């Protein structure tokens, strides 16, 4: 069984009005929606960012500053659907990306907090209508799930399933990423993602003192880095819990696997029950899926 753990997203542009508690109003446009309608990526106009940045007197803008500026902010959003009436929704900002290609432009990933059942159905129906009419399409994600798809330099590792090797593995991946040209920021993201997949194999795929091994295969090429980590247990787990990359549970917390969605360009699970579970992720040197719309990799290192 192979699963793409990214929620299916569609490129649906809906005008959106964003209201702050202080009375400020901004206009934006959604870039894409999850098909469940629970979350959306908002593309905000230039003045939105510039006024925010000016009011906070940031001389130099970088991703962390933008992120801290928007993080945990809650906006009221008014979705202007063609034939559907949805009252204002409170959305919480869960991720911010900025574009360096076309001047100041910000993409705010948000989750609708108070989308009730009937409004959710309205939104979902609108999304379905748009899909059926062919007006919008899915945001396609390449799935490099076959070994044949991946070319480049390959490093194979086999490590004992012991906790101490988590740190070895993540540090190795970070150093390798730097050495093959990733920025410090992206090498760190690879480190965190590598930690999560190896930890997952250790915790869920390796019985205590079972003498298990964890196998890893790292492929580097012109596109970026692909990391696969395989345990020897093959215990299936509920992948649907992690499908919506923006979802949080009722305690407002997310699992480590959500970090994979946050820090990589895609991640996948393959299970042969009783044999192995393999989690892999891809980190691109440049986000291919986002190039066309101006979103670029956040730059944090000068």
């Amino acid at each position: 069984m192979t699963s793409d753990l990214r929620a299916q997203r569609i490129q649906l542009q809906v005008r959106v009005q964003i209201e702050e508690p202080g009375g400020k109003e901004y206009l934006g446009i959604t870039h894409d929606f999850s098909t469940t309608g629970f979350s959306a990526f908002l593309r905000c106009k230039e003045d939105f960012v510039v006024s925010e940045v000016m009011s906070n007197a940031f001389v130099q803008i970088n991703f962390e500053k933008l992120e801290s500026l928007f993080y945990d902010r809650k906006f009221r959003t008014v979705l202007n659907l063609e034939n559907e009436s949805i009252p204002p929704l409170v959305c919480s900002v869960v991720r911010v990306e900025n574009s360096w290609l076309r001047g100041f432009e910000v993409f705010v990933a948000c989750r609708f907090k108070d989308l009730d059942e009937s409004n959710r159905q309205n939104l979902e129906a609108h999304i379905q209508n748009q899909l059926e009419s062919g007006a919008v399409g899915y945001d396609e994600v390449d799935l490099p799930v076959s070994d044949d798809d991946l070319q480049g330099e390959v490093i194979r590792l086999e490590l004992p399933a012991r906790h101490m090797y988590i740190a070895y593995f993540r540090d190795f991946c970070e150093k390798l990423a730097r050495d093959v040209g990733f920025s410090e920021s992206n090498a760190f993201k690879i480190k965190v993602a590598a930690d999560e997949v190896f930890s997952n194999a250790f915790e869920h795929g390796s019985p205590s003192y079972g003498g298990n091994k964890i196998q890893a295969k790292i492929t580097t090429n012109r596109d970026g880095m692909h990391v696969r980590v395989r345990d020897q247990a093959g215990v299936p787990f509920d992948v649907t819990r992690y499908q919506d990359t923006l979802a949080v549970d009722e305690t407002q917390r997310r699992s480590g696997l959500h970090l994979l969605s946050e820090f990589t360009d895609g991640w996948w699970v393959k299970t042969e029950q009783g044999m192995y579970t393999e989690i892999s992720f891809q980190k691109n040197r440049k986000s291919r899926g986002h190039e066309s719309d101006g979103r670029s990799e956040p730059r944090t290192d000068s």
Partner: protein
Amino acid sequence: MTVRMQFQVREQIDPPAFIFELEGTIDSERSLEKLTHYLTGSDKKHHILVLRKIRYVNSCGFSELVLLNDTAVKNGKTIYFVDLSDKVRAVILPMGGAQVLNLLHDEEAALSKIENAFA
């Protein structure tokens, strides 16, 4: 399991608080074991955890921080987490840390909050 986290503690008289300076990585289930014991046994209500020298936190470490905070709350204590490095912040925020932990910019901000609590 290797624990690569150590801490030093300072006592603040006015406003009363313990200030813990943590150093190392928080990446395993036992990373905060000693700190939890120390904190639950302390006679002060307010505690500040300075994370400036924490080099790395993973999702397991984040869970430990939340658990520590939950334990403190259950015991009628408050923890303020201050001075997070960019890399620690990069992991904690996407995990929902701002919703479940008292994250503040620095020690002064935390002391000011504590002072207000006593005002």
